[in-house]
């Protein structure tokens, strides 16, 4: 009904709803993680589930990341559909063996006789002094493993749809949430719907440059795109990649064939990340379409320090993206439009908190 007001929901609430509806739809779906049933309910993403589904479907867990990953794999092999949660993606490093050697390979090495339908949620931390061990963006480590799928939705709408797709998927799916996206609010339909895994989404349309962005950087790119067209009349394509494996290279090439310029924005370090992989694939397959050297917009190749004084400028923002685009197109900066653009993109609030009302701690 077009006249009906569109229901809006936060990214965190959207994930909660997706899990809730999936648990209603399939009795084999279970949730486990440190703090899942606790008062904070993983930033609200598991709120009410324990009360609704009880102790035989919603579980807290011991601090045993590797063991519990294997346990969830064993449950998945025998009919359950476990959803496991890591409050920080950094903790998942403890479970690399189970994820890479077992979850990713089981279906293949046993000739398709068994499969591992499980979802592993991992949250990327940022800000308020998360520091070196609580703010890594490790998606490329998982995305390089044949047998895993890696998704990282940006909008609340996709968070719900991709969570449902991930839970329904018969393969291990790494579901990555950027902590700063949990508060993002947009239209989230009430019904049970799927958003495809492995397809990028065009967030903003234009013809000057292609910006392919992952996770939170898609938000930053969108803001850059709006400011650019409003203030300087430069329009760009912004692709929210949404998945790191499978990687939707086709959509990026399609856009690059139009724009001839490619920027890839990612929340990870520069070297060895998914940004390099995407640029490589586009270059291999659409070399002739590139009018200029592709550019990566990422974090520098250093661990993220804790002090907010040191992280001021550490993370790229819309301004970073805009300046890169202006350089690529080498547009004259001596214009009113550029000045307006700069003031429009002045940082709002603290650079180390997702929202003004945030007072720490995480």
């Amino acid at each position: 009904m077009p006249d009906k007001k569109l229901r809006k929901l936060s990214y965190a609430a959207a994930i909660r709803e997706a899990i809730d509806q999936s648990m209603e739809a399939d009795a084999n779906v279970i949730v486990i993680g440190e703090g899942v049933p606790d008062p904070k309910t993983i930033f609200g993403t598991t709120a009410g589930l324990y009360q609704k589904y009880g102790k035989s479907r919603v579980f807290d867990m011991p601090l045993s990341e590797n063991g519990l990953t294997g346990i969830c794999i064993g449950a998945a092999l025998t009919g359950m559909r476990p959803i496991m949660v890591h409050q920080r993606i950094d903790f998942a490093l403890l479970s690399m063996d189970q994820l890479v050697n077992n979850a990713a390979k089981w279906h293949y090495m046993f000739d398709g006789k068994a499969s591992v339908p499980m979802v592993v949620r991992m949250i990327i931390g940022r800000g308020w002094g998360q520091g070196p061990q609580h703010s890594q963006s490790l998606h490329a480590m998982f995305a390089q493993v044949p047998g895993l799928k890696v998704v990282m939705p940006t909008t609340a709408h996709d968070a719900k749809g991709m969570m449902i797709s991930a839970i329904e998927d018969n393969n291990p799916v790494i579901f990555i949430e950027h902590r700063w996206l949990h508060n993002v609010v947009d239209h989230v339909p009430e019904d049970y719907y799927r958003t495809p895994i492995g397809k990028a989404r065009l967030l903003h349309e234009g013809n000057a440059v292609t910006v392919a962005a992952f996770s939170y950087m898609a938000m930053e790119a969108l803001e850059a795109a709006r400011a650019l067209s409003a203030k300087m009349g430069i329009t760009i394509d912004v692709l929210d990649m949404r998945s790191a494996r499978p990687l939707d290279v086709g959509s990026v090439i399609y856009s690059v064939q139009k724009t001839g310029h490619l920027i890839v924005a990612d929340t990870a370090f520069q070297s060895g990340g998914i940004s390099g992989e995407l640029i490589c694939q586009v270059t291999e397959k659409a070399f002739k379409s590139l009018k200029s050297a592709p550019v990566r917009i990422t974090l520098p190749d250093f661990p993220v320090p804790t002090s907010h004084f040191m992280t001021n400028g550490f993370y790229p923002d819309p301004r970073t993206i805009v300046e890169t685009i202006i350089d690529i197109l080498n547009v004259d900066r001596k214009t009113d439009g550029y000045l307006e653009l700069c003031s429009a993109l002045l940082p709002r609030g603290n650079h180390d908190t997702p929202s003004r009302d945030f007072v720490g701690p995480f």
Partner: protein
Amino acid sequence: MNAFTSTKLFRSMLRIRRVEEALAARYAEQEMRCPMHLCIGQEAIAVGVCENLEKTDLIFSNHRAHGHYLAKGGDLQAMVAELYGRSTGCCGGRGGSMHLIDLNVGFMGATPIVGGTVPLAVGAAWSASLRGRKQVTVVFFGDGCFEEGVLHEAMNFAALHKLPVVFVCENNDFSVYTRRNDRQPNRSIYKVAASHGIEAVSGNGNDVEEVMNIASQAIDNARNGNGPQFLEFETYRWLEHCGPNFDDELNYRSVVEMELGLSNCPIKGYKLKMAEKIPEVDVLVQNFESEIRKEIEEAFIFASSSKQPSLQDAMSKLYA
């Protein structure tokens, strides 16, 4: 123990032994081009444990999997074909000796990363208990595997949720060529398991009846909701860690030790024991031998005459 069960146990051990010997004998032909960890000398544990399991019960295994697979009723032809790398192998050739599976008989899988399957077994037991099934899951692993932290994580969770899982540790005192006292302090393995709040027992892994009795109690306990059980069985690996031969030339274990180990042969010993109850044991054994020989012959013929997969076959089934 009644004669029927005894002969069953005996035949099952003998069959495993003959299969391993046949594999060893033909390994030099280089048709089986993969690492192979034989279980000669350790047959009693697989047999004594699996004898107590229903077909619907599940087991997970490790790199030394042949005995577990056969004792649980795994398809011999599919196993040999797997070693031959053929399409008819239980993994279609993708796995080889260290990756066996036969879901028809509850053999969930064997993999070579030490400790890798232990939490999976706990997970299988967890899902059985969540769905209210009276199904038991058994996992076999070695004394070296006990050093992996994931074991303790798995035991803690199994004890916390009182899961129907039986941990079976085959203690042959070696991890490859390294003795247990070079890897673990002087304390017994099963008592560590006990400290996690798990019922734990140890026994002689070369005495199939002892294994059978201990395991039957443990499996009943697990099935009846008394939570996880841990069994440690002492045994001895006759051959080299990986491969078809004896390894005396490596001199990491003394001739005396080897002779002692071989003298505790679970099969020879049990045959003598059976002779007491069963006068015509020799005839019996001869029949078994010929049946088994025939079965093994056929398995090798099946394997060597099966379709050879190609590169194309490697490029599929990555995702379900």
